[in-house]
Structure formats: C-alpha cells, structure tokens
C-alpha cells in the first residue's frame, strides 16, 4: 500500500481533489426517502399530498424542536463517549421551576403569591440555571468520582423527576403570563432550535472547545497527555447539555402554558435516538450537529406521517424503534465499507 509523501498544496493553487461527500449525505437521503414514502402512501390512502402542506411541515418541526434542542446537548455528550439520561427529568424540573416564577396575578393557587407577573426574563433565567445546575451535578459526579456517565445521569434522572414532583407536591403550575406563553407559540421554538444548532455546530467544528470534545471521545488518555484538562472539560460539556435541557423545559412549559411534573417523559431517549440516527457513535469521537438536526427531522417526519395516515399511536412507536435500529445498522455498514481500504 504505497502512498505518496504528504506535500503542502502549493500556494495559490486550489485543492484539486474533490471534497468527500459529507457524512450526513446518507442520512439526508434516508430523510428524503421516508418523506417520499409518506407522500406516495398519502396519495394512495388519503388522497392528499404529505409534503405540499406548509402548515403540516411547520407543526412537524415545531413538535420536534424541543427534542432537537435537547439532542444538540446530548450529541456533545455522546461525542465525549458519555451519555445523558437525565434530560427528560430535567425538562420536568425546569418546567416546574420556570412556570412557578411565570404565574400571572390571575393564578388562583400561586406557588409564590408574592412573586406574580414577573418580567419574562426571570423564569427563563431561573429555568436555564436549574438546567445548568443539573448538568453541573452530572459532570461533577462523572469527573470527580469517575463513575460511568450512565450511572451518574441515571441517578440525576430519578432525583430530578422526584424534585419536580416534590416542588408542588404533584400539583401542576398554571395561569402563566402571556409574555411567557409567547415563548412557546408560533415559530419561536423552531427559531431557537435552529439558532442553537448553528451556534453549537460552529462551536464543535471551529473552536478549541469542540476540538477537545472530539479528542476526549476519541482517546481520553491521549487527550489528557495532550494537555487537555479532561475532567474540567467534561463538566463543561455536561453543563451545556443540562442548560439545553433547561431551555427545552422552559419552551415546553411555555407551549403548554403550565408546568407539570410528568413533562418530558422519555425525551432523553428521543434525543439520544436523534443523535444516533444522525451518525453520532456511542463509542465516542464521532458525531455532528448537522446529522443530529437531520435525525431529529426524521423522528418528526415519522410521527407526523403516521398521524397523517391516521395510523394508531401504538404502531408509531413500534416503527420508530425499528427505524432507530435500522438507521444505526445502515450507518455502521456504510462506515465499514468505507473503512475497508485500511
């Protein structure tokens, strides 16, 4: 296997070698194929177009924005070789805390009767702070004690759900201000999702934070020897993931105009699924935000498509599980074929 010695490209000359297809090309095709399949089935069974319906597409993206925001944080955790199971419970806890600070003076049973009609930044910042704190606990547990991320975040998952219930002894928090409710209406969550995606896409590809994140996932010991403070970096990554779960919790409670301890159930698994469908590897070192966004959209298209075809919710979950596994199997197969040259 003889290869040429590497030579710098001469100045001024463009790199002639065609750039490789980005790794998202495959998963994007899957998204298009699923959408086209629904389009076809739509014409056959319900005599409607699936895609030629702007409103449906907006609702579809709206439905997955919250999962998408969580998935952006989870992707970064997965790139480090970790996992975050606490996202769904953190959504519930932040929804409760944020909602309790967003109640209007119309509220009959206010959590804090003296704190009504607060400006909208207060509940938002409180929610983000609670999310970040949960992430900080995850990261610190993992960095300081060295226990596996699965266990640390499992513990936080159970505890955060418990805290969410304890906060109001199970009572939902309702009657929120209009300004707060506006955060969850219209295209606001979609805009926040896409802005977050762009921000962290840049952070992962073009900052030291991102490069260190990949390095830690690819080889933790080599990263340490290269001068990266692995523990401290992991705390930052998990805190960011928690912060994004907090953001998702704020949006969820704003959209429902209430806070409930049962919110965000199983969101962590949808978020992990979106990241993994998008090409992130649980072994670490591999994953991209663009892939995760596409993975999120696949989940959205499937849910929306089944509703469109009026298929029972039970079947939806059965098929969703199959799609997650199929996407990962297909991706592994593709990778292996590409790696065969080595």
């Amino acid at each position, binding site marked *: 296997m003889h290869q040429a010695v590497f030579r710098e490209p001469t100045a001024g000359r463009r790199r002639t070698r065609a750039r490789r297809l980005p790794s998202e090309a495959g998963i994007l095709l899957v998204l298009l194929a699923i959408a086209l399949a629904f389009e076809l089935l739509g014409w056959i069974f319900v005599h409607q177009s699936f895609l030629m319906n702007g409103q449906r597409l907006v609702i579809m993206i709206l439905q997955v924005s919250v999962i998408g925001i969580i998935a952006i944080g989870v992707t970064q955790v997965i790139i480090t070789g970790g996992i975050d199971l606490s996202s769904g419970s953190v959504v519930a806890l932040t929804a409760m805390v944020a909602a309790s600070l967003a109640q209007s003076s119309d509220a009959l049973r206010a959590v804090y009767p003296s704190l009504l009609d607060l400006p909208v930044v207060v509940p938002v910042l409180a929610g983000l702070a609670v999310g970040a704190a949960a992430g900080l606990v995850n990261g610190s547990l993992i960095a300081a004690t060295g226990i596996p991320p699965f266990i640390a975040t499992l513990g936080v998952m159970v505890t955060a759900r418990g805290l969410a219930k304890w906060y109001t002894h199970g009572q939902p928090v309702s009657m929120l201000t209009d300004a707060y409710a506006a955060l969850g209406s219209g295209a606001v969550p979609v805009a926040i999702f896409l802005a977050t995606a762009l921000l962290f896409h840049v952070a992962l590809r073009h*900052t030291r934070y991102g490069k260190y994140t*990949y390095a830690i996932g690819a080889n933790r010991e080599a990263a340490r020897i*290269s001068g990266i403070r692995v523990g401290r970096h992991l705390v930052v990554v998990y805190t960011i993931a928690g912060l994004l779960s907090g953001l998702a919790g704020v949006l969820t409670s704003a959209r429902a105009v209430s806070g409930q301890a049962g919110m965000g159930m199983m969101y962590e698994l949808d978020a992990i699924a979106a990241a993994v469908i998008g090409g992130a590897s649980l072994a670490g070192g591999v994953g991209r935000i663009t892939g995760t966004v596409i993975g999120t959209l696949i989940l959205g298209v499937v849910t929306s498509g089944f509703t469109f075809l009026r298929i029972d919710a039970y079947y939806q979950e059965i098929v969703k599980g199959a799609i997650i596994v199929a996407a990962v199997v297909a991706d592994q197969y593709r990778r292996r074929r590409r790696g065969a040259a080595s």
Partner: protein
Amino acid sequence: MSPAAAHPLLELRHLCKAFPGVTALEDVSLTLAHATVHALVGENGAGKSTLMKIVAGVCAPDAGELRLEGHGVHFDSPRAALAHGIAMIHQELNLMPSMSVAENIWIGREPLNGCGFVRRRELERRTHALLERLALDIDPRAEVGMLSIAMRQMVEIARALSSQSRLLIMDEPTSALTERESERLFGVIRDLRSQGVGIFYITHRMEELFALADEISVLRDGRRVGGGRACDLRREELIRLMVGRELEVLPPPPPAAGPVALAARGLSVAGAFRDVTFELHAGEILGVAGLVGSGRSALAAALFGLTPATSGRMEIDGSAVRVDCPGTAIAHGLAYVTEDRKDTGCFLGLSVLENLEIAVLRGDLVRFGLVRGAAARAACGRMASALRIKTPGLDEHIENLSGGNQQKVLLGRWLLTHPRILILDEPTRGVDVGAKAEIHQLIAGLTARGAAVLMISSELPEILALSHRVMVMHEGRITGILERAAADQLSIMELAAS
C-alpha cells in the same frame, strides 16, 4: 514418501490483492516448507500483513491461488483457515482478561458433560497437557489479566496449538517483550518447528531474523523483491532490499555541552521508582535502558505530570518547578511521546490534521475564541511534509496510516508546540527500518538545535546509536549512568539485570 511430505506445507502462487485506490499485493509467490520458520520482512505498508491475512482467511485474494500440501484451498473466513490447521497470532492480543487461562484457550470448544455444563477438571487437564508441550509454567486457573504480556502471548500460542494447527502466523510477537522473554519465545518457536509446524514470522528486528529464520522473504510495495535461505543472506543486503535505497548512517553525536535543561533530585513515585537523580543537558540525548517494569515509563509519566512524584523535586532550567498535570508540563516546554501509540497516542477515528493540531490550539492559532482553521491546516501541512509523513492528505483518518507514519504524526503533534525538552518512550516501536532511520535523524537534528531528549528504549542498538549518555534502571532505581565511551551492550545489560 507420503503424499503430504512430497508437497510443501503451503504454496502461494501469484497472489494479487487491491484495495480501493491502492495495490496491496502484486503477483506474490512464495513457499513455506514443513518444519521451517519463514520470516517476512519489509517496511510497514509493504504488504506483509495483507499477505498473512489472505493465508489466515481474513480476506480473499483477487487473483492467484493457495495450495496447502498440494491441494488448492479457498478460505472465506478465519474459521475455514483454522479448520485447515492455520492459526494467526495477532499483534493485538485477543484474550479475555477476566477469564482464566484454560477458559481462554478452549473458549467455544469446552468439554461438556451430558447436561451441557463445562467439565472443569477435564478442561484444566487438557490445558495442563498443552502448556506442558510448550514447557510453560502457567497455572490453567490463573486469570489472564494478571499475567504479563509475554505470558499472555504464550497463552495465545497455546490457543493456536490447541486446534491442532500445523501452520502458525506470528505478527511481530516480540514487540512488547523484553530480551529475556523474547529468548523464551524463540525457544518455544524452535520446539514447534522441530514438531513439524511451519511458521510465518513477521518482524522488524534484524537480530531476530538471523537468530530464528530458516527462510526470509522481503516484500516491498506489494511485491516479493528478494529472499532465500537465511544463511545465504547478509544484513546489509536485506536492508537495501527492504528500503530500496541506501540508508544514511548517523554520524556519532557531537558532545553535548549545553546547560542543564531538566534535573530530577531524589524523585520518587511510591510503588514505581525511588530516589531518581539525574541531569539532562540542552542538546543532549540521554538514553534510558532497563527491563520492562524497571520504572522507566513510570519515570517518564512522573516527569510529565501524569502521575506526579510523591517525593523529591524537579528543576527546569535551574529553577524548581512543580509539574502536577500535563498542562503545566507543556507550559514548561516539555513534550511526551508515549510508548503505546494506539492506547495513549493516536486519536483513532480522527483525521491526521486533528491528530496533529490538538496540543497547539492556543496562542496565535486562536482568534476571538475561534480556531484559525486555515492557519492550523497550513502549520500542520508544513509539519507533515517536513517529517515526510506518507498520507493521501491531512483529512485522511489516522488509522489508515502505517505505524511509522502514525509515529511521525505523534512526533509532529509535539514538535508543533516547539518543546525544549522531549520525553520519548520507545520512539520507534513497531516502526519499519526506513521510518526508523528517519525518526532517528529527526531526534538527532532536534538536539543539534538545542533540544534536550530523554529517550527510553528497549532496543540497545537504538540507545547506543543515539545517546550521549545512557542511564540504566533496575527495579525502580538508577543502577548507573554511563558515558558514551563506556556504554556497550554488555555494560548496559549488566546494570539492567544487577
């Protein structure tokens, strides 16, 4: 004469194999006779491993045929090859550390009783018989994870023999062994040979070739460029065949007279080494010799802050410093290439570029929090061409590079940080002759420009060729520091074994 004996054990005829973009093998023919050790040599990427993968059924040839004792055979899996008595012992050991020796050897083929339970006594009896054949004193019940690398290798060999193998393939079996352990392995190999087993033996070490091999084949760029009976071949000729050009011989290093760059005063790490005192001068290569486990690598890890010293102190440029994490070490101008390229060096799955740039992402390569991608790429590109790294491009995944080129990437990663003190642990382990010579020149060049180098190596010729002084360790203590004139194989081995 039986028909089996009339034919050679294995004949490879006109084998070709191409991978997308590269030709790995081109018309390779060679013969392995019964009861011989046939060594395969060549630079990394010459096609040795591909050839052996074909023999072991890991991949199929595009053209050509394999004839096993006169019969054409096709292997579509390693299992099929194993059924024909061909077993491969991999460079990376494939044992389950938490299971016993016996369980590892017979996994999947355990003797069972009527109810499907494993007959433990029978399992251990068989293992015992097998280990006896290899004259090994290993307890069949010992947990494999508790054995030394050398012993694990023996267990691998025992496993291969347990399936009645008559053809063994060994890929650099001594790369992680000490001299004494290697001798032991050679004894086992010679025994096997006398029992009629044919052995393909891949190695980079010249000394082993002439000590062990009956036949030698040299591969270069996917072709068999020469070979023959080991007794008819000369060392220089082999190297010329392997490299395809004459190697430059390093001139003896000029005496180092720089100021003390790094000093250790009574440095200790509990349980690893104690009371280590030495001085390393700018422009000097201090070779560190000693057996594996003598504390050499632990000393390197302590100097770099990976396992901070428990007592004693370190001085850099004459002032006492406390190095308790790699970040501090790097800030003081230290660099550290570890002995285990795969486990603690490379970021597998990431590109050559990402592997090169990781330690230098600071200073003027970062602006407004963003890494200046073009500048980093340009710096890494200059480094890659300066070190003559063979790769299709900076975006190639590092696992697709040969061992020698991976090693160069690791050196490049540190050279980008402009270190003044380099700690190199086995800088040429598993690296082919050509790349090895280049790395040696590189190290010598660095010291000529004033860098200080602490070089740990198990290869005495490497130590002797490069070092200004040689420090020898034994059981966690320095047993001597030899001036260049006083250092030779004998004096070093005496100190290392004392």
